[in-house]
């Protein structure tokens, strides 16, 4: 009895070991291929020829004239405009490389971008977007139009922008500008 049990255990453990060896040897080739540059986003390192870049113009605020100035940037292009729009917003939060001011709180994160057929982009920010905002009418106006102008300017499919905070509609950004309606762009704020 005991002998046959030991034999059974030995056979089972041997087959387990064999299975494990088989698994590691045969499975390797496929798992390496898997991670796509698409989802990784930030590191387009391994296969540069498959990553297509798209040139965009971001609008930042100038300390000199108080107007919005375009700054060219390259983002990883994506089949959906939603994903590209989210990348544009991420770049806006990261800030200017030419010493211009980004009127978006640095702590804010983009949660999601939805785009309707009618051309309204719903941009959903984390709560820091309004909580870390310095408040003040001019500051809020600059935040809104830096974002709205950048999105409408770069994406033909975006006609207006509705700002959400933490998944919800918010009454005002930080006490002044109402967020209960979609914004049309205002290019009169852009430097000529």
């Amino acid at each position, binding site marked *: 009895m005991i002998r046959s049990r030991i034999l059974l255990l030995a056979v089972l453990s041997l087959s387990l070991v064999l299975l494990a060896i088989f698994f590691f040897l045969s499975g390797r080739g496929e798992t390496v291929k898997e991670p796509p540059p698409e989802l990784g986003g930030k590191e387009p390192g391994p296969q540069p020829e498959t990553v*297509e870049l*798209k*040139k*965009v*113009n971001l609008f930042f*605020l*100038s*300390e000199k004239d*108080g107007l919005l100035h*375009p700054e*060219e940037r390259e983002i990883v*292009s994506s089949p959906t405009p939603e994903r590209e729009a989210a990348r544009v917003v991420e770049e806006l939060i990261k800030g200017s490389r030419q010493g211009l*001011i980004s*009127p978006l709180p640095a702590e804010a994160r983009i949660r999601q971008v939805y785009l309707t057929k009618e051309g309204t982009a719903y941009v959903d920010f984390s709560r820091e977007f309004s909580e870390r905002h*310095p*408040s*003040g*009418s*001019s*500051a809020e*106006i*600059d*935040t809104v139009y830096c974002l709205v102008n950048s999105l409408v*300017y*770069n*994406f*033909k499919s975006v006609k*207006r922008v509705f700002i959400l905070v933490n998944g919800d509609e918010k*009454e*005002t950004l930080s*006490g*002044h*500008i*109402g967020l*209960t*309606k*979609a*914004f*049309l*762009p*205002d*290019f*009169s704020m*852009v430097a*000529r």
Partner: protein
Amino acid sequence: MSSDAGSIPAASISLLKDKWTVPRSRYRIQAGFLGALLFASLLAQNIARVRVSVRDYAEFSRVTLESTQTLTFTIARRTPGVIEVGLESQSPVHIQSGPVTSRLIRSVSMSRQGSRNILSIEGKTESYTFTHFTVGNPFQLILDLREVRRPAETPLAKPAEKKPAPTVAEKPAAPPPQDTGRPAVPLSSGGRTIVIDPGHGGMESGAQGKFGTLEKDITLAVSLKLKSLIERNLAFRVVLTRDKDVEVLLENRAAAANNNDAQFFISIHANGSYKKSSSGSETFFLNLNATDEDVRRLAYFENTQTELQGRIAADQDYQDDIRMILWDMAQAAYIRQSSRLAELVQAELNGLLGTANRGIKQAPFKVLTEVACPAILVEVAFLSNPEEERLLGKEEFQWNVAQAIYQGLVNTIREFPAGGYRR
């Protein structure tokens, strides 16, 4: 892929120019309008301009003749259906009126007999009574026509009684601007109100200066000073949306204006900017930020106002729906007057800080959207600018700001005296 992104600056600029055309034409219209207003006021010295308007209310139809000069008049009912108003004036009379859509009135027409101008008001039936009264400065002659009802018919409930009294905090706390429920004699001088709204309060402190000055404290200090200036010098009642450091919902601030049937709504704020060197005072009025859909909606309401009023009065359910939609854009009906008020207040503020004329601006301020009277938001100075933060904390500067806003308000009232802003 990147063809629409404008990869070189020149291309981006030309693309921008295309998009500029829309807002620019809007300004042109506004400028044209102001020009026309100025021109009209110049002409008014010699010619009596009379504007005739017809408006339906729940229980009567009103014909209003607004004139730039006081007129002597005679009123007679020549035939059962027609009222003739004879107008006499030392200077030539110029009458303007639009097409009439009214439940009771078929037409309003003008004719001349020698030096007399005759305005004929033709009723749709012969069974109506009318009353008339006049209001001073600017001269207004008002005729109210009431249908004589057969006794079997139940009269419509008075809309004034439909005010949602029990739910004070709720949004439609007062009738919207196009509402039928204006009292029969709204132009009497008594009980004129100005609502002053000190921004923020309580937990919500607004912008903050480098040295710790809070927006909510500055707004209250300036508002209290403005209140005392108005009460000391003008025959207006002043209502503050808050008189201490408490939080007030934005919708209740608008309701304070609407419940009190306010003539003016002035929201006081202190600015904050990402641009550290920003300085000076700015006066804002509402930018509707209207999408195509809103514009269509607004046009629809303007075009079918009279018809809607009949339906609103008749159907309770419908009334609630329409009210909510109208509330959404209560300020839309007052944009022009708000812009003029902003202009006159800003003109006074410009001198104060010695800054270049910053002009008036439009922005989608939440607090202004539901206010059903001329409404502005004054950004006194920048808390984000250390020099101005120091100024804002000074009593003397606060008095100067209050005085400037007061003066702008007085100039506005002078330009549009009693009732000029009300419909």
